[in-house]
């Protein structure tokens, strides 16, 4: 490991407080401050997967919409569904390409930046990743080709089937990749053996290794989170178009459909998430303690709401720094499944802790957003019941504003999962610091991190522009007034006249 500073040193042991002064190491005597290979690798992986997961979950969440619109379009020849199919299949296509090109760097980084992880865990993670490629990616890519370019070249039934197969591919891809991630959280079905002078994991029980305790929790939570995020996106786009056009049957239908899906998925996520948190307390008590910033092993209160009392609380969310609305001992009750007096393990029990502040605030952001989504769903449900869904300007504007928030919840949820697992990359088995390449230099790692930041920022911006152009095309096609450039910032689109 040489002279590299272990990233764990960047956090105060025990408290997990971030110490900004130690974030940089190997500082060049000149003007360039290089990040340590470890910190740069972690930042790079965290950043690239944050972008990738937006597109991956877009495929998962949009698949049911796309299948439904395609099926209705082919079955009924209803103009509404032709319009919706065409729009959302285009969004799906752009999202899929973005997902592919941002996804390949993910699997490469297991080798370029974290080769020790790949070597140690190869027997356990290689199989699921290979199955993901063979069972999911090929299915998605091949039949998306048919879906995008083959309308005139295949029969109607085959065309609808293609949309189904694309969706199955997206959901299967989530299945296999979460098998890998769940194994990293609750590893099972292996033993550590020495091979070529190195401790590596040897597969001993495939069914235990694939279906780890975390897997079902994670899969349901992630699929549902993707559905919520996309329902909010569809609702937001629909609400905007309805608001601009005032009479678009197609987009009224889409808005209603999205709200109905939200009515099912948003409450379900809260109920499921509550049980999931109990499971985390059982299997990863340290992560659970970080989620609640619970330091002493004793009875735990449940902080329903927490606000920083002073700036310090942002980096060190201890009870004394917070204004909280808490239910005394309900934390114990929830964690134990019914015992108000149950002891909850505190962070002080551990030698090293994750950066507590990131986990604590991410968890609160996710939960808070989750309740906001339930409120939006109920409000929408009431408006549907009252027959005023598309007339309420206030609701339409609220849904436009909420359209990116599903992704905010999804990302903060993953921050809880991934940052909360630190200092481990494989819980209890391999530390993240030990997984990093020993040949990687600070200069290389910083260079690639910078490149990924620049390119992926450009990518996200481009994706947003494309969505904007698609919406403007749609408004033009619906005969709505051309939206002026001052409503959305950025260059004016030049829409072709032929549609």
């Amino acid at each position, binding site marked *: 490991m040489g002279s590299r500073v272990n990233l764990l040193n960047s956090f105060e042991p025990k408290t997990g407080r971030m110490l900004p002064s130690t974030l940089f190491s190997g500082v060049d005597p000149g003007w360039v401050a290089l990040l340590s290979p470890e910190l740069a690798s972690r930042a790079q992986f965290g950043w690239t997967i944050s972008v990738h997961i937006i597109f991956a979950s877009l495929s998962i969440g949009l698949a049911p919409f796309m299948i439904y619109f395609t099926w209705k379009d082919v079955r009924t020849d209803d103009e509404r569904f032709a319009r919706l199919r065409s729009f959302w299949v285009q969004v799906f296509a752009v999202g899929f390409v973005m997902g592919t090109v941002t996804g*390949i760097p993910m699997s*490469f980084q*297991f*080798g370029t930046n974290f080769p020790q992880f790949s070597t140690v865990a190869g027997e356990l993670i290689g199989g699921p990743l290979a199955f993901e490629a063979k069972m999911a990616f090929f299915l998605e890519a*091949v039949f998306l*080709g048919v879906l995008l*370019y083959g309308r005139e070249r295949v029969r109607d039934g085959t065309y609808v089937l293609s949309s189904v197969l694309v969706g199955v591919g997206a959901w299967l891809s989530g299945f296999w990749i979460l098998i890998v991630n769940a194994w990293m959280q609750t590893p099972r079905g292996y033993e550590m053996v020495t091979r070529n002078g190195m401790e590596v994991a040897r597969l001993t029980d495939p069914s235990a290794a694939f279906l780890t305790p975390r897997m079902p929790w994670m899969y349901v939570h992630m699929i549902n989170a993707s559905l919520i995020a996309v329902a909010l996106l569809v609702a937001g786009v629909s609400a905007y178009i309805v608001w601009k056009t005032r009479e678009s049957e197609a987009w009224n239908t889409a808005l209603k459909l999205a709200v109905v899906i939200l009515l099912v998925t948003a409450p379900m996520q809260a109920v499921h998430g509550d049980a999931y948190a109990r499971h985390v307390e059982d299997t990863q008590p340290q992560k659970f303690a970080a989620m609640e910033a619970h330091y002493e092993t004793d009875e735990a209160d449940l902080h329903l709401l927490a606000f920083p009392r002073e700036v310090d609380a942002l980096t060190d969310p201890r009870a004394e720094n917070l204004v909280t609305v808490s239910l005394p001992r309900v934390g114990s009750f929830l964690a134990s499944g019914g015992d108000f007096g149950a002891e909850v393990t505190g962070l002080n029990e551990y030698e090293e802790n994750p950066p507590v502040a990131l986990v604590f605030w991410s968890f609160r952001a996710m939960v808070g957003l989750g309740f906001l989504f339930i409120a939006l769903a109920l409000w929408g449900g009431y408006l549907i019941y009252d027959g005023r869904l598309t007339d309420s300007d206030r609701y339409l504007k609220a849904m436009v504003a909420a359209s990116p928030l599903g992704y905010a919840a999804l990302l903060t949820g993953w921050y809880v999962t991934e940052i909360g697992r630190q200092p481990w990359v494989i819980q209890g088995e391999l530390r993240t610091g030990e997984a990093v*390449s020993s040949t990687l230099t600070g200069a290389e790692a910083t260079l690639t991190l910078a490149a990924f930041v620049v390119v992926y920022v450009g990518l996200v911006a*481009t994706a947003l522009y494309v969505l904007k152009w698609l919406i403007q095309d749609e408004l033009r096609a619906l005969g709505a007034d051309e939206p002026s450039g001052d409503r959305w910032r950025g260059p004016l689109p030049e829409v072709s006249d032929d549609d």
Partner: protein
Amino acid sequence: MTESLLPVDAYLVASLPEVWFAAVMFALGMYVVLDGFDFGIGMLYATRTTEHEREAFLSAFGPVWDANEVWLIAFATMLLAAFPRVYSALLADHNLLAIGFVFALLFRGLGPELREQRDDERWERYCDYAFVGGSAAAPLLFGVLAGRWAFDVATLSLPALLTGVDLVAVSIVTGAAFLAAKSDPDVASELRGYGTAATLVYLGGTVALLASVVATDAGGAAEAIRSPPAAAVVALSIAAGLGGIGLARRGAYRAWLASALTLPALLSALIALLLYPTIYPPTGLSVRGAVVSPLALNLVTVLGFPVLLLVLWYFKYLYGVFSGPVDAEGYGG
């Protein structure tokens, strides 16, 4: 449950590690063959001057490139599943090359997809730069990476650079043949010219590559190059290359395509022959030394191989749906 179905301490067949070495190299070959002609389309796209011709090339590229690119992921993940130490070392030791390559793929993939999102000349020009630049850089960097892997040489060495040039050239050959089989006669005869030149560069490059490897015994591959199987692969490549030029001259473009596609397949086979029984020359790691334990390999065999057959059927279906001539409006109804 699975334990009773799968042997834990013995491979399903004694040669399973070698079968997996072949399977991984097969996936690599599929990638180089299929995405190779995508790269070729991207590079030849730069020679088109009218919007109509550009759109015709993009129509040929559109339905298939993404599926073709998945073979890269299949190759990488199969390598990880069967030989994790090789996966780790290959990427960690060449991390800038590998990341440069994935950036090239990123620009290549996004260019055409984004181009059609907006009717604006400047926007389209930027997207075209991304498409052409990515299509040229990707095979170059991937080839250099493969050369460094197979011959244990530096990036700026003759064997690595020649492998990169070879992959660029052979991609142009297959791209030209693929497009010629789908284009009108005028465009096809132009493509024949590019294809012929690229074939000669490829064959010359390959001979120079092998000569430079023999001269320096890079990666200890000199002896393997003189072995009968390697010599046979080289002879077949020359026959397929020159034969392809002849077929193209006679306007037999589909036959030209068939012979052109054997070139990158033979190149992958050659790399496999030069590697084996070693799998990672920089550390001298062998196939047997790098392979995972019997249970893990048996599992990926039993679950993975049937799916691989299914995947081959998908491709047969995909290319069946999108067969025949193509123009700016895409494939006809």
